[in-house]
């Protein structure tokens, strides 16, 4: 099926990598981080890339999910699964409550409001030390297990998160290709026209905001169990901005782009550590460079480059390629 061929490729890559590089730190450890980031980026991309509603506070929902699980399992001794569900319910409710007033805002005002939301959540996490452990964080979070299968090694976490990523990508692709997905893109294109076509834009925005928040909370909960430790600096506004950067770097409104952006921004610092004090500067330069030369995002940009190369190497009398729909690239 053409619609899901990309997903299939992604699945193959996820399965094959640990087989080619067994026991490799970059696959099982960094790969797990990249996977989590990719899940977050894909969810943010639904909101930002497709619906055009920028959020600089996505890390907050990630954090609430993580802390819900951490607190319920460590302080109250709950089983991880009900903790996860309570975390999702809590995040969903919070997102639902703030969505309406916040999503009335547009552009930079929306950016500021979501940024503020993220910072407020962060401050509460830091200040509610009796509950959250404050800046020192909260440790001793049990790992996940299902039907006796315990996720107790990096390899197993890799499998779990890889699977989760595939699931989230599949959900995102499905949504984009549906009535609801078109409604999202439509309100990005023109809110009045979308309304006039019968789309309840406020409800649609709220819906996608809550959905993105839920996915982020799910990722957060998994993150808490995987790290066995949570601390506020994993959910700071800097991380929210990093997530936005992943989405834009990969290419707005492209699910695979979001995955690509997440992977690149996760691996880049790991590779740059050898530059020590120069790391920050080089990282900034690379980020700028990528955006300057491929302003429409790496995924679309690289695809186009590839296409150009193929076209050039092909004999001229073959049919000129059809102009691709740049927005259809899901």
């Amino acid at each position, binding site marked *: 099926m053409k619609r899901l061929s990309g997903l299939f490729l992604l699945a193959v890559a996820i399965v094959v990598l640990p087989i080619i590089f067994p026991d490799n730190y970059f696959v099982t*450890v960094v790969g797990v981080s990249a996977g989590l980031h990719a899940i977050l980026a894909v969810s943010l991309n639904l909101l930002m890339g497709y619906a055009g509603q920028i959020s600089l506070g996505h890390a907050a929902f990630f954090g609430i999910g993580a802390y819900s699980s951490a607190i319920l399992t460590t302080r109250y001794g709950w089983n991880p699964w009900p903790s996860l569900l309570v975390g999702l319910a809590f995040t969903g409710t919070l997102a639902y409550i703030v969505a309406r007033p916040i999503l009335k805002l547009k552009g930079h005002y929306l950016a500021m409001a979501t940024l503020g939301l993220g910072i407020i959540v962060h401050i509460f996490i830091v200040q509610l030390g009796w509950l959250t452990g*404050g800046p020192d964080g909260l440790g001793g979070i049990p790992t996940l297990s299902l039907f006796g299968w315990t996720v107790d090694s990096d390899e197993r976490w890799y499998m779990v998160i890889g699977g989760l990523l595939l699931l989230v990508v599949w959900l995102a692709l499905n949504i984009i290709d549906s009535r609801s997905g078109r409604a999202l893109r439509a309100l990005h294109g023109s809110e009045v026209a979308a309304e006039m076509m019968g789309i309840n834009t406020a409800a649609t925005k709220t819906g996608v905001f809550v959905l993105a928040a839920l996915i982020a909370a799910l990722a957060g909960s998994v993150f808490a169990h995987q790290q066995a*430790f949570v601390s506020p600096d994993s959910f700071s506004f800097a991380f929210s901005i990093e997530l936005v950067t992943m989405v834009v770097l990969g290419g707005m409104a492209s699910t695979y782009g979001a995955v690509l952006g997440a992977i690149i921004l996760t691996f880049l610092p790991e590779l740059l550590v050898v530059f020590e004090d120069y790391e920050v500067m080089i990282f900034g330069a690379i980020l700028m460079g990528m955006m300057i030369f491929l302003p429409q995002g790496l995924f679309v940009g690289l695809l186009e480059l590839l296409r150009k190369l193929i076209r050039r190497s092909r004999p001229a009398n073959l049919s000129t390629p059809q102009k691709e729909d740049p927005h259809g690239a899901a």
Partner: protein
Amino acid sequence: AEPIRIGTFLSVTGPASFLGDPELKTLQMYIENINAKGGVDGRPVELVHYDTGGNAKEAVNFAKRLIQKDKVDVIVGGSTSGSSLSVMPLVERAKIPFISLAGSIKIIDPVQKWTFKTPHTDRMAAQKIYEDMQKRGITKVALISGNGGFGKSGRAQSLAMAPNYDIEIVADEQYGAKDTDMTAQLTKIRDTDAQAILNFGFGSGPAIVTKNVRQLGITLPLYQSHGVASKKFIELAGDAAEGVRLPAAALLVAEKLPQSDPQRPVLLGYKNLYEGKYGDVSTFGGHAYDGLMIALEAIDRADSTDKAKVRDEIEKTTNFPGTGGVFTMSPTDHLGLGLDAFQMLEIKNGDWTIVN
């Protein structure tokens, strides 16, 4: 011979870089020196280091990288309490000796088998300060603290220890790491009946607090924590720093110690080496020195890098004179310092003096 591999992850950049930066410099400088002298047991020492930027999440990944990929023998690192605490479950599972360079008492209390640390705890700092206050007859204290990990943890210990010294906390204010003005908090403090002000924090905050105290014309004694134990503080706070007291390792006043002090040669040696290369010392770099030396001596005594043996030897560290004090560890004490490891200092004429 097979090199000894020391792994470290530090907050070399980011908000806690004032910790990580001197720590990294110290490790690099000493390992270079040791190798120049032929290494340990004839084996060269190799340092593998990563910068966490102060983020606990990075710390976990880098600790994994050190253990799985770089296959280090010992980890000496973790500038912040958060980053140290976050890797502890990992370290315990991987069974690798870990000497933390962070302040929180939670790292060694309760004691975890594979985890040690060298810096004085924030509890000790609070105790030392309260001892001094008791001597001056102070019973009412206004607390102000930064809301980062260091300040928060210090605040918690200060609140917890106060009753033991019959001290009443009459104000409990906070400020953000990058706040530029604390006069609002201090105005509130001014209008309490506090007899002294205690500030737990690091970075620009304590210097601004010190200046603001003087700006508001507050004449109460001002205590800072060991978080400001570097010349930079005096430079930033300027005249306002006169009379400020703080607990700190003897490193800052090495020259002023009696000749007989067992720490004196170590302190002068470290200080001269560091200042010769990088400029003003801080006590934080000293903690890295202590951690590194304790680890290497343990390896030397164990005659191997077998992790279990090294761990046992670290635990047996006895009367080791470091920059932070004289360490004597035990199965129930993975720090091995007493309150006497702290000196109470006062800033006079722009320099440190020992209070007695």
